[in-house]
């Protein structure tokens, strides 16, 4: 069963990756991706706030991870996503996948990212010197999903 963690506390991505990798005695490949709070174009980001839908968030992430497990030959998958307030440079989330071969681990990690970008109930708000603004969903994120649906 893929492990899903939703929390507001900061986390150490190296520690979480080591913990995940230590469980993969039969997998030859572990791939991970981490998302980090970046500055806004104007360079004055004070913080990012992420709202989520408690209950649905965990269900949606478990569903996405479960689908990755059936589409690729995965030994395991892991998703951690934070909510609440975080500063520039802080880690927002990470995914990790484990497989016997790297192609499946890479593809599944990308699939998890594409899906949780626009199908997991999180909403980002950027707080700057100018005020607060919700981050708009990007068309590119929907396009990224479409390629998995064609297959």
């Amino acid at each position, binding site marked *: 069963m893929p492990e899903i963690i939703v929390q507001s506390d900061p986390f150490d991505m190296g520690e979480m990756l080591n913990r995940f990798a230590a469980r993969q005695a039969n997998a030859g490949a572990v791939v991970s991706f981490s*998302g980090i709070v970046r500055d806004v174009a104007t360079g004055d980001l004070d913080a990012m706030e992420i*709202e989520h*839908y408690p*209950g*649905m968030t965990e*269900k*949606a992430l478990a569903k996405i991870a479960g689908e990755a497990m059936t589409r690729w030959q995965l030994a395991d998958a892991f998703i951690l*996503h934070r909510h609440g307030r975080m500063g520039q440079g802080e880690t*927002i*989330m990470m995914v990790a996948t484990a497989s016997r071969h790297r192609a499946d681990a890479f593809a599944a990690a990308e699939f998890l*990212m594409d899906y*949780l*970008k*626009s*199908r*997991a*109930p*999180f*909403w*980002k*708000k950027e707080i700057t010197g100018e005020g607060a603004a*919700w*981050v*708009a*969903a990007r068309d590119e994120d929907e396009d990224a999903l479409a390629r998995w649906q064609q297959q």
Partner: protein
Amino acid sequence: MIELRYFAWLRERVGTGHEQVETQAATVAELIEELKARDEGYAFAFSDLKAIRAAVDQDLVDLDAPIAGAKEVAFFPPMTGG
């Protein structure tokens, strides 16, 4: 009674995160029409349906989805996770 949940800018425009309503609506879209008829705040919040996503009992659905028997319907803008 059905529990409504609102998130992100939809929550801000509606002015509450959740409320309970009695509804005659058969689908999510009909429920939206009922809400829009309430007052200007709701009408503004739901003015652009392309920017509205919905979940019925915490499963993402299309706006034409039925709500019969649903305990909870949630409305929110397109998600921005990751």
